[in-house]
């Protein structure tokens, strides 16, 4: 299987879906001629033309809202938010509209839109180019939120998102774009939205996480393995609605669980994961449910000293895993 980068897997998914279904189109800021500020849509403008790869005016609520309209008509828009941080002007369209269209119309209308956005830190992006924004949306039934960690998952899940009959927020870790490479089949495949995936098997401790932190956890797990500690790593992949069964299964296996997110701690995806465990498999626990997360400050600062302090990294993960193992 060819080895491709995370961002190329995303481009591949879009290209293949656009070839497959003429109703799929892309819209967003700089997605056309420039191919996106990260180059996620590179080549699509040349291949599909400006009618299907639309450079929109600089207005996120319109990008989402126009996409939603097209989706209600029956198209399959892929809207790009240039940075996840800039999804905020579109929150009304996403929460009040996209998420509620099927429900409020009693299944008469639906809204098959995908909204893609690069998120995450560690790239000197400072407060407004580093944020994790999933928690803002992770309380809105009607939405699905997908956050893949590997090129393989990214391609298969983005294809599934495009074919999904409901709105999907698809957040891509911008530091993973070129850093993370992996095997990706050339042809067509889809992966199920709503299912977590065990990325490593182990019997001693369980780590539950998603996005770039999956790789930090896998790296740390290698280090622990040298000392005979075996880690189960569960990659949530879909962070809303959560895969409760997979969470409980992963917890039951080891009884010791560490939850990791690069988002601020209070009110993150990991709060819900913890609540699921405490509700459904409390008596399987041998240790308190630890969370490793960003500090509760608004967002990542720019200066290298403070950015590093904020960001989760393999060393921080390793430390927390060892503490848990020794509990």
């Amino acid at each position: 299987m060819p080895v491709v980068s995370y961002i190329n897997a995303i481009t591949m998914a879009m290209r293949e879906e656009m070839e497959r279904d003429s109703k799929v189109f892309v819209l967003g800021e700089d997605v056309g001629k420039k191919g996106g500020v990260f180059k996620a849509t590179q080549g699509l403008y040349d291949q599909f033309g400006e009618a299907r790869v639309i450079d929109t005016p600089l207005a996120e609520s319109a990008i989402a809202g126009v996409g939603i309209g097209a989706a209600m008509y029956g198209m399959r828009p892929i809207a790009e938010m240039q940075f996840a941080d800039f999804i905020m002007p579109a929150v009304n369209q996403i929460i009040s509209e996209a998420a509620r269209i099927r429900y409020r119309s009693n299944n008469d209308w639906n809204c098959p839109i995908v909204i893609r956005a690069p998120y995450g830190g560690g790239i000197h992006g400072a407060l407004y180019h580093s944020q994790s924004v999933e928690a803002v949306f992770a309380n809105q039934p009607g939405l699905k939120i997908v956050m893949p960690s590997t090129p393989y998952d990214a391609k298969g899940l983005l294809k599934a998102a495009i074919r999904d009959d409901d709105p999907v927020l698809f957040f891509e870790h911008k530091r993973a774009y070129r850093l993370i490479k992996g095997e990706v089949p050339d042809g067509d495949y889809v992966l199920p939205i709503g299912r977590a995936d065990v990325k490593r098997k182990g019997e001693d401790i369980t780590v539950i996480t998603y996005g770039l932190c999956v790789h930090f956890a896998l790296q740390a797990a290698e280090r622990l393995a040298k000392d005979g500690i075996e880690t189960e790593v569960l990659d949530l992949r879909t962070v809303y609605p959560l895969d409760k069964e997979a969470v409980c299964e992963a917890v039951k296996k080891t009884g010791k669980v560490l939850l990791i997110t690069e988002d601020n701690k209070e009110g993150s995806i990991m709060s819900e994961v913890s609540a699921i465990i405490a509700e459904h498999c409390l008596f399987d626990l041998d240790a308190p449910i630890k969370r490793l997360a960003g500090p509760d400050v608004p967002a990542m600062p720019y200066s290298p000293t403070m950015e590093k302090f904020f960001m989760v990294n393999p060393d921080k993960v390793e430390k927390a895993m060892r503490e848990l193992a020794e509990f």
Partner: protein
Amino acid sequence: MTENRHKSIGLSDETAVEMYKTMLLARRLDERMWLLNRSGQIPFVISCQGQEAAQVGAAFALDRSKDYVLPYYRDMGVVLSFGMTAADIMLSGFAKAEDPNSGGRQMPGHFGQKKNRIVTGSSPVTTQVPHAVGIALAGKMEKKDLVTFVTFGEGSSNQGDFHEGANFAGVHKLPVIFMCENNKYAISVPVEKQLACEKVSDRAQGYGMPGFTINGNDPIEVYKYVKEAAERARRGEGPTLIETITYRLTAHSSDDDDRAYRSREEVEQAKSNDPILTFKAYLKDTGAMDEKMEKAIDAEITRQVDEATEYAESAPYAKPEDALTHVYAEEQ
């Protein structure tokens, strides 16, 4: 005799009377809803009263077999023109399971019916504006000859979504008709405290489209402008902004008491221009409708409203646990 203005723009007497019937049906349904509300039978009403001419005049100017409408909560005249029935409206008023708009999930005035291309709407104002642009874009991509028609109040034209949607439509020259129903108030806030411009149509040039401010009490004038806008749109010449000047004859909704913010004289004055009355007089003056027809129409509409009310009243509510359905597509 009054000048016959509808013939001169290609409207037959029959169509003009059809428009009147639709306006009157909207009015009578609305009035009945208030009675039901005041007698405690339905929790909420929000009215079209005073705006029926703008709504019906516009809707009749569209191609009701293929265009898409994105009405706002007062647009009963639009949705009746596009095929919604009196019973549909009443089912929504009573929040019954059979309500085609939402199965009783949304308040009345939150229209939506896919088979008639009435696009589902929500409560937050103006979100429908970009949707209309998106549907027009989709129609263009799919090479369909369709126009989208979206309405909103003058207060709502201050939302960011109006600006962003209108500009998008302008840049892409999309077949969208933006129609503002300026009824002079946004709940209690009068238009002077709402709009810095004199006319909402002053905003059109900021989006590279023509803008018109017209008499919303005259269905013929509205028909004419919307028809022209639709033709421009179908010719690929892009969007149009039309502001119809109307007046809201009722309180904002059944939860509002408008005496706190506007004088009775002002309301009475507006009632003397009630489009139902003036259009009826016009049709009679031009000979399009006679006394006998008028009576028959009145009786027929009363019957429709009665039947719709009875039907809806005795229709069942959704089951409690139906609240759990249709969050996502059902798994195949």
